[in-house]
């Protein structure tokens, strides 16, 4: 199939056109609009870097960024620890381990919006009931302040995504040759030693992938945020993605929202690439 052949272009045109219309043209326009006072319809002025200066001062962006960074740090650690632990559990041979995989993975198939609503009920109703029964005051009034709202979001995300991280770790755990494990057992290595010196190094590529997924996904979370706390109370649980959507569609400040979205893109791209770079280096060193 040559470049100049008609069929080459016939095969490519539909996807190329869609990609251009949906991703590249809007992205280029977005960069341009971020330097203007665009209101979604048109613009009257070039503002230069004014939107970019504004977003770092008093526009909720920094608060959302800080909330998101803390959220990402906590969820990346929890998801990888719990995801790997679940993978190790269900790859042992015992009755029902297949059923457990199915159960742990199930929340992933249900959309983030629905999951947030389900947990809203649990935090506000079930937690209150359990707290009353056990006389634990801390279980009442979840989602009413920034602190419990933060942990609410963490719990929903961990419940949803650890089954997904689990199946990636399973894929790599199953690739470890059983002779290696058996040889270590013969040499008298304890289960912990086997894990630290054999299993963990051998699943380094899985770790790279899971770190990448949990990191980039954590920054982009929107649906769960919307349905669980809707950023409240007083925007104290508003994450980056929601801050951008609200700036655009609630405050009608389209140019500022676009500037925020571009900073958002740079942050996510830079962190994801750095992470992959360092983990790949670690894989090679082993």
């Amino acid at each position, binding site marked *: *199939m040559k*470049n100049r*052949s008609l069929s*080459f272009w016939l*095969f*490519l045109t*539909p*996807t*190329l056109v*869609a*990609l*251009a*219309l*949906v*991703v*590249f*043209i*809007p*992205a280029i*326009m*977005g960069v341009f*609009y971020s330097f203007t006072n665009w209101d*979604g319809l048109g613009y009257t002025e070039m503002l230069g870097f004014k939107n970019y200066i504004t977003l770092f001062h008093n526009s909720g962006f920094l608060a959302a960024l800080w909330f998101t960074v803390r959220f990402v740090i906590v969820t990346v650690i929890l998801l990888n620890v719990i995801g790997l632990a679940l993978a190790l*559990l269900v790859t*042992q*041979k*015992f009755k*029902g381990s297949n059923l*457990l995989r199915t159960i742990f993975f*199930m*929340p992933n*198939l*249900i*959309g983030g*919006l*629905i999951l947030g*609503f*389900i947990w809203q*009920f*649990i935090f506000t*109703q079930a937690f209150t*009931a359990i707290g009353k029964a056990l006389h634990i005051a801390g279980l009442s009034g979840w989602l009413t302040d920034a602190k419990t709202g933060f942990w609410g979001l963490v719990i929903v995300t961990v419940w949803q995504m650890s089954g997904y991280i689990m*199946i*990636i770790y399973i*894929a*790599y755990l199953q690739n470890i040759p059983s002779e290696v494990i058996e040889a270590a057992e013969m040499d008298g290595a304890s289960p912990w030693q086997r894990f630290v010196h054999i299993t963990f190094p051998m699943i380094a590529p899985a770790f790279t*992938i899971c770190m990448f*997924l949990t990191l980039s996904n954590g920054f*982009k979370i*929107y649906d769960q945020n919307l*349905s669980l706390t809707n950023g409240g109370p007083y925007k104290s649980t508003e994450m980056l*993605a929601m801050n951008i*959507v609200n700036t655009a*569609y609630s405050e009608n400040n*389209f140019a500022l929202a*676009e500037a925020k*979205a571009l900073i958002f*893109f740079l942050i*996510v791209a830079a962190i*994801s690439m750095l992470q992959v770079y360092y983990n790949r280096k670690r894989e090679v060193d082993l």
Partner: protein
Amino acid sequence: MKKTSRIFLGILGILLGLVWLFPFYMILTNSFKTPKGIFASVLGLPTTATTANYKNSFKALDFMNSLGHSLLITVVSVVIIVFFSSMAAYALQRNKSKLSGALLMLFVSAMLIPFQTVMIPLTANFGHVHMLNMWGLMLMYLGFDASLSIFLYQGTMSSIPIAMDESAELEGANRFQIFFKIIFPMLTPITVTVGILNIISIWNDYLLPSLVLPQTQYTIPLQMFFFFGQYTKQWHLALAGLTLSIIPVILFYAFAQRYIIKGVTDGAVK
């Protein structure tokens, strides 16, 4: 493994499984209670089960309508994505030139751009040409999801020998015949993966449809969002609605479980 440690693992597994299922237990049991029943005991089983909640929320959700829109949008979008991205991957993989290398890079780089970065100009542009409806949405899904799909297709295609194409060409087949009669059928396993990944993400999508669809074309997540807003304090109805919205997903999972787990693993690992 020793027998005692196997029993210990089994018990640990059961406990964790129950923790994971707890949210489903909560919404299912409470969706059959009256408001009074929920107030009296959130954690217990319903004392007098009622199906009225389901009848009412089925109506209020306009469930058959939103289910129909969800199905139509998901099926058509996924068919378009599978069809066009496999064709594009074929063109790029079978033509080793600088241009196709650059085009592949272009598709891959599109995956790095978060949705929020393009959503505002995108919806403004589509608004100008009156494409803020489900047909516009399907085109958008092709644009957003083609990258990953092409990436997956072209990786698999490299393992199909080019001799297949050449011998078909000698027999007088044209490019379309070669692709659809010989290559595409050989790609079935990866087509299942591409299909499943796209079905899950499109079925559950909220933000993009909320910016694109008119109220007459609402999908389940959109309908759920507005339904929930209306019935914030009426948990018995809200929970029945939530349970209804989950049923199609659970059915899909029950029937296609093996393919789903495999598809999701392949999609993430490749």
